[in-house]
């Protein structure tokens, strides 16, 4: 019984709504007939200018709003797409060894060239964390002028007041190599502390390379025997 009462009340409401809708349509018809389309009148130019300004302001606002809405729509999709791309790339790099090596090499190269090549804070003294070898003999007058360190190589520059220089490099990696310019140079094989070494003389510059625990290189515009002596005195640095 209650259900029927409720249904009747609902039906009555619908009929009333129908009546209101009918009255509304009549009202719109009245509006249209009471306000017919007539000849256009010219609005004052000042008002017209003001309205054009308003229109352009509102249009810009609308454009900004549309842009915001578009960005809101597109951004999450772009983020998801990037995530998927990044995920796939990571998976691919993890699974394909050749690719992994290449990618790691890219990072390593960048690292060596731009990031990790650093001069020590006080760059004319051996830093506390020095790891590896040092020349324990240096001709008189030579002092450290600069030290450079990176992941694979450490270089110490020595200079004296006569403008002469000696450059000592040690390369710590297993597969690292030291290269010297032997083109048109006078080259001879020598021994440095039981290790085979190569000595090259070119334009007054002496270069010695040899391998012990690390690969070493000495380059200097000093006397050959002096540079050999420096090389023979390269020993492990004990803190």
């Amino acid at each position, binding site marked *: 019984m209650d259900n029927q009462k409720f249904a009747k009340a609902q039906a009555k409401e619908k009929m009333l709504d129908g009546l209101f809708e009918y009255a*509304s349509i*009549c009202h*719109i018809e009245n509006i249209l007939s009471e306000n017919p389309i007539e000849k256009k009148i010219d609005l004052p130019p000042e008002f017209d200018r003001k309205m054009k300004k308003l*229109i352009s302001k509102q249009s810009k606002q609308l454009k900004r709003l549309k842009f915001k809405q578009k960005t809101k729509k597109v951004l999450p999709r772009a983020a998801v797409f990037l995530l998927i791309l990044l995920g796939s790339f990571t998976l691919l790099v993890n699974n394909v060894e050749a690719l992994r090596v290449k990618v790691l090499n890219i990072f390593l190269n960048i690292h060596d060239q731009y990031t990790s090549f650093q001069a020590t804070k006080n760059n004319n003294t051996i830093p506390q964390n020095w790891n590896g070898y040092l020349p324990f003999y240096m001709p008189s007058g030579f002092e450290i002028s600069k030290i450079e360190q990176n992941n694979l190589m450490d270089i110490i520059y020595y200079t004296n007041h006569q403008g002469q220089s000696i450059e000592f490099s040690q390369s710590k990696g297993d597969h690292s190599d030291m290269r010297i310019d032997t083109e048109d140079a006078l080259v001879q094989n020598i021994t440095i502390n039981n290790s085979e070494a190569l000595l090259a003389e070119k334009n007054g510059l002496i270069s010695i390379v040899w391998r012990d625990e690390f690969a070493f290189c000495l380059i200097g515009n000093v006397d050959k025997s002096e540079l050999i002596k420096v090389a023979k005195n390269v020993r492990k640095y004990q803190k």
Partner: protein
Amino acid sequence: MVFFSKNNSNPFETLYNDYASYIYKVAYSILKDDHLAQDAVQETFIRIFNNLEKINNMDRNKQRALFVIIVRNISIDIYRQKKKEYSIYLDQINANLSDPGSDIEDIVISNETFKMAAEKIRELNPTYADILSLRYYYNYDNSEISNILCITPQNVRTRLSRAKKCLIELLSLEKEANKYG
């Protein structure tokens, strides 16, 4: 032909070019003052802009009637601010409205009622007739009506309820008159 559409990519500008003069005339017919009518036109276009998406998809007659409703309400608001008596008059009408109750509704819903509705809607206060049209013809919800008329949703509810009661009362009074007259 009075109305024409320039091939303009900006829909707001197109509406302005097509309807500014028309809307101005409606505003002037109520306010009888150039400057006040211009204010009403400006405010009308701001409200049109705020509801542009819906308005753009309407046919031109529907658009035109809606603009009349908007500019008329704005003009009445401006007029009210200038002449306080008008609002007192409206308040008096509102105060006299009692709940029609189910009996009156029973009287109202009959076969001839629709004919009467077409006549009585003319007698209904335009503010009430407008809000009924916004709800039942344009199918706007309370928040949309609130945006168009710039009144609070609470006011929309109150005005809509009073409009319904008022129309029912006008119809029932007519019925009663027919019955005894």
